[in-house]
C-alpha cells in the first residue's frame, strides 16, 4: 500500500515535471539542433533578432494568456495592432522630441484598452462567449483601422518615435527591452497579485470563485482591458519599427499569440497557464520561424509545420487533462 502510494507520487512528480518544463526542454533542444545545423544561429546578433521578432506578438500572447486562463479567449489582438498603429502614427508623424512619442504610445494603449473594455463588458455582463465577442472586435477594429487611415499606410516620421523600435540600449533592441519589462510586470501580476489569483480562480471554477467573493465580472473586464492594452502597445511598437502605421498590420497575429500561449501549456479549459511559459511558447515559434527561414524551407511548408506543432501542443494538453 505504501509503495503503491509512493509510486503514484513519483509518477505524479515526473508528470508534473514534464508538464512544467517539457516545453522549455523542447525549446532548448530545438535551439541546440538548429545551432548545429546553421552556422551563426547561436550568435548574439541572431538571438537578438529572434527576440525582436517575437517581442510584438509575444506581448499580445501575454494578454491572450490571461484571457485563456480565465477560460476565455481574445481573437482581436491582430486587428487592434493595426488600429493602434495607424492612430499612433497619425499622432506622431512630423513631430519632434519624445513628448509626442509618449502621447502616441499612450494613445495606442488607450485605443487598445477601449477595444478590450468593449470585449470584456460584452463577455462579462452581456454573457456572450468571448470567442464571439472578440471575433466581432477583430472585424470591427480592422474596419476602424481602415476607416481611420483611409485604407492607406500612415507615415510615422518622427525620429524620437522610430528610435524606440530601431534603437538599442547596450546592444539590446528597444522592442526587446519593452517585451522583457511587460513580461516581468505581467508575470508578477499573474503569479503574485490578488488580481492574478482571481484570474486563476475564475478559470479553475467560476462558481467557486463567485462563492469565494471574487468579483467575476470586474475581473474579466480587467483581463480583456489588459489584453487590449497590450495589443495596442504591440501596435505602437510595430509602427515605430516600421516607420509607419498600416491598417493591414498584425494580420493573423492573434493566431500566433494564441499558439504561443497554448504551446506554453496554457490550457484552453482555463485555470492553467503562466506568463513565463507563454514566453517559452512564443520563443519556440520565433526560433522555428527563424530556423526554417535560414534553412530555406518553403514558406508553405513552414505554415504546415507550424500548424502541426500547435495541434500537437493542444493534443498534449488534452492528454494531460484526461489523465488528471
Amino acid at each position, binding site marked *: 500500500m505504501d509503495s503503491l502510494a509512493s509510486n503514484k*507520487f513519483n509518477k*505524479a512528480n515526473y508528470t508534473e515535471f514534464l508538464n512544467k518544463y517539457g516545453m522549455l526542454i523542447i525549446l532548448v533542444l530545438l535551439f541546440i539542433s538548429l545551432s548545429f545545423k546553421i552556422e551563426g544561429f547561436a550568435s548574439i546578433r541572431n538571438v537578438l533578432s529572434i527576440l525582436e521578432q517575437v517581442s510584438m506578438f509575444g506581448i499580445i500572447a501575454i494578454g491572450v494568456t490571461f484571457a485563456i486562463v480565465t477560460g476565455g479567449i481574445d481573437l482581436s489582438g491582430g486587428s487592434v495592432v493595426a488600429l493602434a498603429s495607424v492612430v499612433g502614427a497619425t499622432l506622431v508623424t512630423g513631430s519632434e522630441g519624445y513628448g509626442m512619442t509618449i502621447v502616441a504610445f499612450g494613445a495606442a494603449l488607450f485605443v487598445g484598452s477601449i477595444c478590450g473594455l468593449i470585449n470584456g463588458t460584452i463577455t462579462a455582463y452581456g454573457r456572450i462567449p468571448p470567442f464571439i465577442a472578440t471575433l466581432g472586435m477583430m472585424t470591427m477594429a480592422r474596419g476602424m483601422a481602415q476607416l481611420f487611415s483611409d485604407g492607406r499606410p500612415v507615415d510615422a516620421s518622427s525620429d524620437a518615435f522610430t528610435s524606440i523600435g530601431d534603437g538599442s540600449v547596450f546592444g539590446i533592441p528597444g522592442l526587446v527591452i519593452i517585451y522583457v519589462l511587460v513580461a516581468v510586470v505581467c508575470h*508578477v501580476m499573474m503569479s*503574485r*497579485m*490578488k488580481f492574478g*489569483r482571481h484570474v*486563476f*480562480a475564475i478559470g*479553475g*471554477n467560476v*462558481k*467557486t*470563485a*463567485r*462563492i*469565494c*467573493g*471574487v*468579483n467575476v465580472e470586474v475581473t474579466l473586464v480587467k483581463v480583456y482591458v489588459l489584453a487590449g492594452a497590450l495589443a495596442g502597445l504591440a501596435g505602437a511598437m510595430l509602427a515605430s519599427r516600421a516607420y509607419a502605421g498600416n491598417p493591414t498590420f498584425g494580420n493573423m497575429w492573434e493566431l500566433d499569440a494564441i499558439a504561443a500561449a497554448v504551446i506554453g501549456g496554457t490550457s484552453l479549459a482555463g*485555470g*492553467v497557464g503562466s506568463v513565463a511559459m507563454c514566453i517559452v511558447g512564443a520563443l519556440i515559434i520565433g526560433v522555428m520561424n527563424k530556423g526554417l527561414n535560414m534553412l530555406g524551407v518553403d514558406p508553405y511548408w513552414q505554415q504546415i509545420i507550424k500548424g502541426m506543432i500547435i495541434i500537437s501542443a493542444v493534443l498534449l494538453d488534452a492528454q494531460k487533462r484526461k489523465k*488528471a
Partner: protein
Amino acid sequence: MTNSDSILEMINVSKTFPGVKALDKVNLTIRKGSIHALMGENGAGKSTLMKILYGLYSPDEGGEIFFDGKPFTPKAPIDAIRTGLAMVPQEISPSANLSVAANFFLGRELRRGFLMDHQAMNQETAKVLEELGIPMKVETLMQDVSVAKAQLLAIATAVSYDAKLIIMDEPTTALTESEVRHLYQIVRKVQQRGISIIYISHKLGEVFELADEVSVIRDGEYIGTKKTSEITKEALINMMVGREMDEMFVREKVEIGDSLLKVNNLSLPGKFEDISFDVKKGEVFGIAGLVGAGRSEVVEAIFGYKPAQSGDIYIHGKRIEIYKPMDAIKQRIGFVTEDRKLTGLMLNMSVTDNMVMPELTPYVKSGLISDELASNVAKTMKQQLRIKTPTVGTIIDNLSGGNQQKVLIARWLLLEPEILILDEPTKGIDVGAKAEIYKLIVELAKLGKAIIIVSSEMLELLSLSDRIMVMAEGKEMGVVDRAEATQELILEMAAGGDVPTEHAIEIDTTELSIEGVA
C-alpha cells in the same frame, strides 16, 4: 431457486466501493405485472441497486440476479434494454433540438435505404402515444415539451422497447399535482400491459396510492418487503428509519446565547416562500427536507449566491443587504456548499489556494501575495483539522473527499466566521472523517458561532442540531426542538407536500417518539 411469478429476483447482491459498502446482501423480488415501490433515505443504496440492474455497475462476487427466470449479468445499459429492462431516470435529458418522434427513436432510427424514414417513425410514435393515452404531437420539438410530458415520453419509449420491467426513478419530483395524476394513469396503463414497474419514491402518499408492494432498503441493507394493503404508514416509516440509536453521535451540550441571525419572510418565487427563522450564538440549526424542498436555495440566498427576491435578513438585530457572496463574507458568514466539485473546489489549484481564496489580503505584503505566509497558515489549518495531504501545495484533486471537505471548512474558518452554513457537510465522505467533522461543528458552536446545517441524513441532523426547521416544496413546515424531534416526525413533516395537512397535525399528537433521541 427461481420463482416463476417473479420477473426479477436479486439474491445476496452486494456492492463495495473503495472504503464503502454501498449494498450489503440485498434481496429483492419483483412479481410479474406488479408495481413495486422501492423506498429508502438518500444514500440508502437505491440508485446503486438500480445502476447494477442497468449494467452501469457490476456487483460484487457472490450474489445472483435472475431476470424472467434466467441469470442476468448486464455489462452495459444496452444489455439491460435487450433483455427487457428499461429505465426512466429522475432527470430526463432529451435532445431539445429534435422532435418528439426523433427522441422516441433516438439511437434506433428507422431507415429506408440510406435515409431516415421520418414518416414511419412519426406514425409509430403516434401509435404508441395514443395507445397509452399521452396527448402529444410527434413533430413538436422537445424544447417546447413540458417536463411532465417529457417524462411520459420516456415511459412510452421504455414501453416501445418491449420492456418487461421498467424502473422509474422518482418520476414525480418535478411535476405539478394534475401532472402527477396523469402520470399515475399512464403508469397503470403500462401495468395493464403486463409490464412490471419498480417505482422509486420518497413520497409515502404515492407509494400507497400506486404500488402493490413496497421494499425498503436502509444503509445498503435490505429491510423487507410488504404488501401496501397490509402495512400502515407508521410501520413503513419505522422500516425506513428504525436505526439503532447507539449509532448516533452524542454531542455535548453547548450554552446557547443571543440571537445572531434572523431571517424574515425570505422568498424566491419558484424556489421557496416565506421562510422565517433565527439562529442563536452557539446554536446548531438544522434544515431538513426532501431533495428539491428548497433547503439549499434558502442558504444560497442567505449567502447571496442566488439572492432572495423579498424578505429581510438581520445580523445582531441589524438589517443587512446581501446581494452577492462578498456582502455575506463581509458579514463574516461562511458557506460550505452542497456540491464540492461543482461549487466548492478549484480542482486544479493547490490546497493552499483553495483555502485562502475568499480573503487574500492578509497574505499580501507590499502589493504582492506572499505564498510563504499563505502556506504557513494552510499548514496550521492542516494540523488543526488533521487534513491528510502530502503538502499544502498538492493539487486538491488528489485528496480524498473527506479531506477536500476539511479544506473547504478550513477555507471559511480562516475568515473567523460568526455564522457558518454547511450544506450536506458529510456527503460522500467516509465514517471516520464524518465523526471528525461532527466534532468540529460542536467545537465551533462552543466558540459561540451560529451554525446552519442542511442535511439529507436524518441521523446527522438529529444528533447535531439544537433545532430543526423542516421544509417541503419550498415552504416552511415548522421548527422542531431537539427534545421533540424524532425521525418519524420530521419525515412526516418533510413529506407534507403529499399528505393532507390534518394528517400532519394528527401525527403531532400520536405517540411515535423513539427513546433516546434527546
